[in-house]
């Protein structure tokens, strides 16, 4: 039997799953509901200035990269397996597509964080 390379992706999936389980619902509420509707938070909580300060800080950069990249890996991993669960055996191509997508997203994210500067 061939050794599976799943440990790489499973680790990323697991990290994303853990992160999203801990902060996912709150973060979605904050950026998608509370901030836009200014509930609990101030109207400019996610304003341009605030966000710029945040992503200029190395820890802020790391947080953004971790969130976006790991969420993508987590999501793509599950979507790949769901295809199989639904009876669509797309084979290696599907794996390349999904993990490629998550990797590309992560790289774009890193590049953006870099362009925004320190």
């Amino acid at each position, binding site marked *: *039997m061939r*050794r*599976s390379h799943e*440990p790489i992706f*499973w*680790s990323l999936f697991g990290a994303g799953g853990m992160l999203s389980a801990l902060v996912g619902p709150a973060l979605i509420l904050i950026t998608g509901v509370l901030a836009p509707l200014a509930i609990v938070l101030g109207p400019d909580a996610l304003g341009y200035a605030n966000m710029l300060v945040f992503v200029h800080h190395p820890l802020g950069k790391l947080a953004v990269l971790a969130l976006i990249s790991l969420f993508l890996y987590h999501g793509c991993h599950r979507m790949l397996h769901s295809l*199989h*669960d639904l009876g669509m055996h797309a084979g290696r191509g599907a794996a390349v597509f999904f993990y490629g997508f998550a990797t590309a997203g992560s790289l774009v994210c890193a590049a953006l964080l870099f362009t925004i500067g320190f």
Partner: protein
Amino acid sequence: MTDTTPTPAAAAPRTIEIECLRYDPEQDSAPHFQSWQVPFDDDTSVLQGLQYIKDHLDGSLTFRWSCRMAICGSCGKMINGVPQLSCHAFLRDYWPNKVRVEPLANFAIVRDLVVDQNEFLDKLESVQPWMQPCEKLNVADGPQRQTPAQLDQYYQFSQCINCLLCYAACPQVGLKPEFIGPAALALMHRYNADSRDRGWEARAEVANAEEGVWGCTLVGYCSEVCPKGVDPAHAINQNKVNSTMDYFGVRKLLAPKGGAR
């Protein structure tokens, strides 16, 4: 004290409809259902219902059974869509509705309620489920020591009766027939987790494969239906961690095994 005087309700004869999936490879191209009315009592198992049919109504109805006490693992069926031991499911719990009995899901049907367990038997063997000690043991040296705490590490996983309910519960078994599956992987873990065993390396090829622990997507239904509390989902998924550590070459550092002596 027990009051075993029959209550009027228990004494009244009741019947229930049992509907079985039937398939005769010599006659049929596809399975079909057939029903019977079966008298039952408060302690009549579904298996006893099937036996009643076979003895009195239709001798050709075919199913496996043996111990009728939930330990031999022969009599698993889909009962109203749920994998169960038919000797351990009771007609009283389904009445007055009918009860539908089908062969275990995810297996090919050989005849009526009998499924093909050949692939499973090969999978069971593929995990090398025998003791692989670090050195050859001599009977003259007597029994090895193993504390109750060490026993506890694997005891739960040694409870498997190979009833296949977990295979019928696991969609990955149906979707990917090569998947080694819950019971066999739990058995592998049973030996790996035994303080007397040193066989991790020998079994690693299977564990680390796509067909091994990585075939599981943690549906978790296997553990739900297991009649013996084996929790195969636990056995498999903690080995995803082991397999990952093995992949990155850190298993030996992080998971040293307690010795038997």
